[in-house]
Structure formats: C-alpha cells, structure tokens
C-alpha cells in the first residue's frame, strides 16, 4: 500500500531522474519505428508515435514525451502538446485500426499547450476530435499514466478500454497549480490543492476512472527503471489478453460504458 500523500507523489513524478517514455520504449518494445507528422501541418515533439512488437504482437504506441534535460524539454515542449500532436495521435490510432493493431497510449503531460498558435490551430477542436474518435476506434486501446495526467491534454490519449496508472502518478481535471489559481486565485497554494483534489491512483480507482495500479520500484520509478518497466510489461500482457479475446462490438460497448457511468447525481 502506497502511503505517500498526493503532494509527496507530485515531488516524485517531478524528480529529475524519473524515467520517461523514451526510457521505457526500448525495455518494452522490439523493432520500434517512430512515425512522424500529422499530415496536416506539422510534427509535434510532445507526442511520440510509432510501431513495433510487444512480446511478438504488432502494436501502435502513442505517447506524451517528457524531456530528461533542458535540450530534450525544448524539443518536446515540456510534454505540452499542440493540436498537431493530438492530430498525429489520431492519425496513428486510425492506422492501427486499419491494420488491426492494439494501441498502447502513455500519458505524461501537465496539460495541453496554452498559446496563441495552439488556439489558432484549434486546441479545443483537436482534443474534442480525439476524444470522440478514440471512443469508436475498432481496436483495443490501453492507456497508462506514467507521471502527470493533466486535464484534457491527458484525456485526449485517455479514451481507452483500460486505464492503468503507475502507483505514484496523478490524474486531474487541471494541474494542481491551475486549480489553486482558479479557486483561490493563488497558484502558490499548489501543494494544498494537491491534497484535496483526489488525484492519486487509489483515489481514481475509487472514482472508477482507473482500472489498475502498476507498482513502481521501491521509493519511486527512478530507483529502478528496469523493474518498473517489467511491471508495466506484465500489465500490458494481461490487459491485451483480456481485450484481444473480445469481439469488437463488446469491446466498443464496454469502452462507451466505462465513461458513460461516471458521474454522481440524484434525481429528486
């Protein structure tokens, strides 16, 4: 049982040695080829896509990429995708559907990028389109949150058949900083926000958003990327086995209902 508070986990996932998807890919996939571009406007470094084998099964991988140093972070815009990134993701998901490959998404973003060009190129539309289309993609989709699952920028890769979270990762409606800024007009109360937002993997299992928690190495994934990768690999094996045996109608109905049933209300 992970005893850390949300706020302590935030420190762990921001640890400068925390493995990114670039560390995990060689440990999880064979013959991986990265594929680039959205075929519309550009190629977003914040979202990585590609194809390869997972234990002999051809898969498509779509991932938000954090940098391991300043140079990498410049290239991947600190894992904050532009609309082009989400459109690349959609292109690759459709390609996976065409070739009947399961899709493995890795989520790790503070949120979609906020800027003039992002607005001009339709950040809202790009995310909306992904959410809608991923709901209907006719191949299994497994999403795994590696670190930060920030808001719509995460959900754009989070419409899936199963959502798993690394044990210290978080998933939230907005970054804790943004939350503090909106509700208390004080972004510096980020840590306080963390602890009332219900954003840990255990919270999200309780709220029926997360289906599975993947154990990290003792003290955090950075202490042993190899071991953490083995745990991720074990989870993907099991999840694919569960999903690949389902008929497409059943798969898509269950995907729809996974989201359909979230919400707490009463009817007087």
């Amino acid at each position: 049982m992970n005893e850390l508070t949300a706020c302590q986990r935030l420190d762990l996932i921001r640890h400068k040695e925390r493995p990114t998807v670039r560390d995990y890919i060689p440990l999880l996939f064979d013959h991986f080829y990265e594929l680039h571009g959205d075929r519309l406007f550009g190629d977003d470094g914040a979202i990585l896509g590609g194809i390869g084998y997972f234990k002999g099964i051809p898969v498509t991988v779509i991932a938000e990429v954090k940098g391991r140093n300043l140079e990498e972070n410049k290239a991947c815009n600190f894992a904050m995708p532009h609309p082009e990134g989400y459109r690349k993701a959609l292109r690759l998901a459709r390609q996976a559907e065409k070739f009947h490959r399961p899709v493995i998404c890795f989520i790790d973003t503070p949120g979609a990028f906020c800027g003039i060009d992002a607005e001009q190129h339709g950040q809202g539309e790009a995310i909306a389109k992904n959410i809608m289309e991923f709901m209907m993609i006719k191949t299994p989709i497994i999403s795994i949150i590696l670190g930060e699952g920030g808001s719509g920028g995460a959900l754009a890769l989070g419409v899936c058949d199963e959502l798993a979270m690394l044990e210290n990762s978080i998933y939230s409606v907005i970054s804790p900083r943004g939350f503090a800024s909106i509700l208390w007009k004080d972004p510096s109360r980020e840590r306080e926000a963390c602890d009332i937002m219900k954003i840990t993997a255990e919270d999200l299992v309780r709220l029926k958003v997360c289906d599975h928690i993947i154990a990290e190495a003792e003290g955090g994934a950075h202490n042993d990327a190899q071991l953490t990768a083995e745990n991720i690999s074990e989870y993907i094996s099991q999840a694919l086995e569960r999903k690949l045996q389902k008929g497409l109608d059943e798969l898509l109905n269950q995907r729809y209902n996974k989201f359909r049933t979230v919400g707490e209300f009463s009817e007087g």
Partner: protein
Amino acid sequence: MLEDLFSVVKVRFNGDKTEDDKKKTDIPKGLLFKCPRCRSVTFMEEFTKAGKVCPECNYHSRLPAKERLEITVDKGSFEEFDAQMISKNPIDFPGYNKKQLEMREKTGLKDAVLTGRAKIRGEDCIIIVMDSNFMMASMGSVVGEKITRAIEFATENRLPVVAFTASGGARMQEGIVALMQMAKTSGAVAKHNEAGLLYITVMTDPTTGGVTASFASLGDIIIAEPKVLIGFAGRRVIEGTIKQKLPDDFQSAEFMLENGFLDMIVERKSMRRVLSNLLKLHRLSGKEAAANE
C-alpha cells in the same frame, strides 16, 4: 489546460478596469448596460429591446437558458428532460454542497443546463441550452449526464440535436469526475454521428475550456453569435506564457471563423430562421426532395 477558465471570463469583464471605469460602474445596477467588448454604455432599456445585443459593437451578451428557449423554440413546444437532476459531491469538495444550494436559490435552476425536445419553426429536434448564471455553466456530473441522455434520446429516436453552448469549462469542484464528462458527452455525440444524424452547435458567450474541448467543437455545423468569447485556454494563462498582452479580438467568434473552426456567425435575430432552415435541409434526403419536386 483549463487553467484560469473562470478568469478568462472575469479578466475580460473586470480585469482591465481603470480607476475611471470603477467610478463609472457605481451607477445603480440594472439601469445601464456596459459592454464588456467595446466598453460603451447604453441604457438597459435600449439594450434589452435590441435583444441584449450591444448597439455599438454588436456583442451578443449572455442569456439565461429560459430566455434563450423563449426566443428559439416554438411556443409551448418544449418538453423538458431530467428537470430534477442535481449533483452530488463526488470528491467531497469542501463547500460544494452549500455552493450548489446557493446557486439553485439564486438562479432557480437545478444546474447549468436545460435539455429537452422542442420544435423550431415546426422542425422537431432535441435542444440543449447551457446557462452561464449557474457556476459559469461549468460541466460536472449533471451537465454531463443531461447532455448525454439528451443526445442518446436523439440517437434512439432519430432526431437532430441543437446545442447552445456556454461554459467556463470543467467544474473544478467535481475533480476528475468533471473531466470524464468530456468523454461521456463526446461518446454520445460519436454514436449520434455514426447513426447519420445532424448535430448543430451554437457557441454563445463564453464557450471555453473542457466544453470547447468536447461536445461544443463536434457539431456537423458550428455556429456562433457575433463577438462572443470562444477559446480553449484562459487568456491570462496564455498572456503569462507569452509574456505579452493579447489583442482584443483574440478568441472571439470572428477569430475562430478566420481560423477555420466555425461555419458561420449568425445574429440572434436570425438564429431561429437559420436553425429551422438547416434542420429542414437535413430532414429531406436527396431522394425525397427530388420526389417532392
């Protein structure tokens, strides 16, 4: 992404006040309308007579959902769905229950959206109207569930959907549950879309954040009222990122049209006619229409 969803609205409406402006707004409330877009001041009577449109710059101001229905659907045709639905407090957010009670008292609404079946100049449709008076029409469990049910009803009964959107985005007080409403509503749109049915969205002031990033942007036809605010991220967040002030028309309906994210901008006084014409155009398939000729 959703940072400062509320401030995006607030900044535009209060943020740039000079000392002079502050003095001016001391005039008794309800007598004058001060336009948040062009800052001109009009007598409330004149503004109301113009359909709550700024006579100077044509900014189409916010309307309560009930008023929107009155000017949009045929008299007596609206049958409301799920009128009693209220939200729980999924993440036990401190003060949220009390806040909801206050808002219900103040607005007479149960939450931020009305849904139902109606006719627009005789054209049968499902209608969704958001109301920014209720917690800036942020989307939580009730908004998500009512919209999803309305669209599902439309899919089952082969009806078109017309959605008037307005929202500050996801409702922070419901945490991740609010975020999931984006997927829930968009899923319902996906099925309606797959069934070959028409979905029209009308973006009204303000359409932002998680609502822009879900069902509002998924219409077959996307319309907006003139001069309204439409965007994804909050203005202040973007200004913070780029360290410079944004032009006034940034994230306006006109900006969205220019960048290719709207089909048309339609004035309030023409909306009923345009909607009914679009509904009719889609009701008739090519074959049937040719047979009628």
